[in-house]
């Protein structure tokens, strides 16, 4: 797989990262180098080996169905870009 300018543009758009000519050039170079490095893994024979979901040998920790969090609205809404007592306020997003 090779990273082209179109790939970089698409990834930038999907991840909402602003890009420009210079950024794209650098990215093409960096990402292709990374891919080439990772490609070394292709040398390993992996037939008959199940993909590993996690390297941690532990069971998934589970919680009980209990409500412990009470109203934390004030602390939460501090992070809203605009002030409002009830809601996060964001620039209009509508179809």
């Amino acid at each position: 797989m090779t990273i082209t300018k179109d790939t970089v543009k698409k990834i930038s758009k999907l991840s909402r990262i602003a890009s420009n000519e210079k950024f794209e050039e650098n990215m093409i170079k960096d990402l292709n180098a990374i891919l080439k490095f990772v490609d070394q893994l292709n040398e390993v024979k992996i037939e008959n080996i199940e993909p590993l979901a996690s390297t941690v040998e532990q069971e998934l920790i589970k919680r009980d169905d209990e409500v412990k969090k009470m109203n934390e609205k004030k602390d939460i809404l501090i992070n809203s870009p605009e002030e409002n007592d009830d809601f996060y306020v964001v620039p209009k997003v509508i179809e």
Partner: protein
Amino acid sequence: MSEKEFDYYLKGEKGEYEVVIGLEVHAQVLSDAKLFSSSATKFGSEPNSQVSLVDAAMPGMLPVINKFCVEQAVKTGLGLNAKINTFSKFDRKNYFYADLPQGYQISQFKHPIVGEGKVILDMPYGTKEVGIERLHLEQDAGKSIHDQDPKNSFVDLNRSGIALMEIVSKPDLRSPGEVGEYIKKLRSIMRYLNTCDGNMEQGSLRADVNVSVRKKGSKEFGTRCEIKNVNSIKFMQQAIDYEARRQIELIEEGNEVDQETRLFDTKKQETRSMRSKEDAHDYRYFPDPDLLPLRLEDSYIEDLKKGLPELPDHKKQRLISEFKLSNYEASVIISDQAVSTYYEEVAKNSDYKLASTWLMGELFATLNKEGKDITESPVSAVNLAKMINLIKDGTISGKIAKTVFEEMIKNDVDPSKIVEDKGLKQTSDPKEIENIVDKVLETNQDKVEQYKSGKDKLFGFFVGQVMKEMKGKGNPQMINDILKNKLK
């Protein structure tokens, strides 16, 4: 069941078309806390009052799975006759939207918790099997409100992180009617299991609808469009009909159907393209590094299986064989678990036939009029059964029973008390009835003459007069018999 045939084919200029539909149903799991946090899930709470730092996706917060939500998903899977996967995994589905604080939804992509299953529908043209492709667990998103401010959208994260079961059907549905029955069936199963309340007005059950068309008889699928987030059966049906006709028109004009995401505008009754979703299918799924695989023991699944309640399909067959109900009666009664429980209590303590007549007649009419559901019934099952027994043992007539029932609606007491207090007891004393019959015949001698000379229809008049004299409390059968005898 009638021999009606399936007939939903849409006519175009160049022939008939078959509509192919698959559904992705999103069912909110009934649980107290969210899927990966301990915030509450209550509907209609003050905005943003059920949001923890995990739900708001603050840096460093880690998801911890709610084991009851897992249990609910497994139970639902068992209810759908589906394979439960002892190994499943959580993935991140990446997209940006204001009501998705994480920038990704935790979902299950490659390894869902539930695999293939099936649901049986009762259609007028026979039973229809609909395949289930999979069921997986995922997080719900928050809610955006767009009509409060001209320049801004308001976001409420109360719903963010509530557990959803996405139930994906195979493309087995062929008409809006089948879609309606499918949704009702899923809802009924989940309500019996108590895994989802199925409340569509509150958004606990909603669906993405995939629609394509093909020439009648063709085996190949056409290009499909996905109509996002439709929240009522009626809207789903309208959207499918509109969308199928739109696609047929495109094809007949020699154009191609673009595979795209559309939304249904309920006011204009049309679907239209959601341009913002152009890249939407590029979700760049990858395993969530914050969560380990979910492994289930066979014994755990077995235990849940043993604890399942009786499900609608089974209950229906049992009611038909145990209480000799018709297929129609049984279908109506089992569609709501609470109704079926009520029915069984009445039927077991009185008469199964009268129980179904009264339940589906007077009681349903009353509930409808008062806008109540069966759990709020003004007449308890115990008292309805007692009333039916009063009809059966001849204490009251079916007609008087309606008066008694009216009283019971106002005041849910033992019906024999009402009969006593209001003096509604049926007169079955032959002497008394005979006296009144004689009196009626005496005062209507002219009619008796007419009757005897062949005017049979007058019989009803005599019955009516006797009943009137007896204030409706005469035993109808006895009045009939005595009159017949006297008029010979």
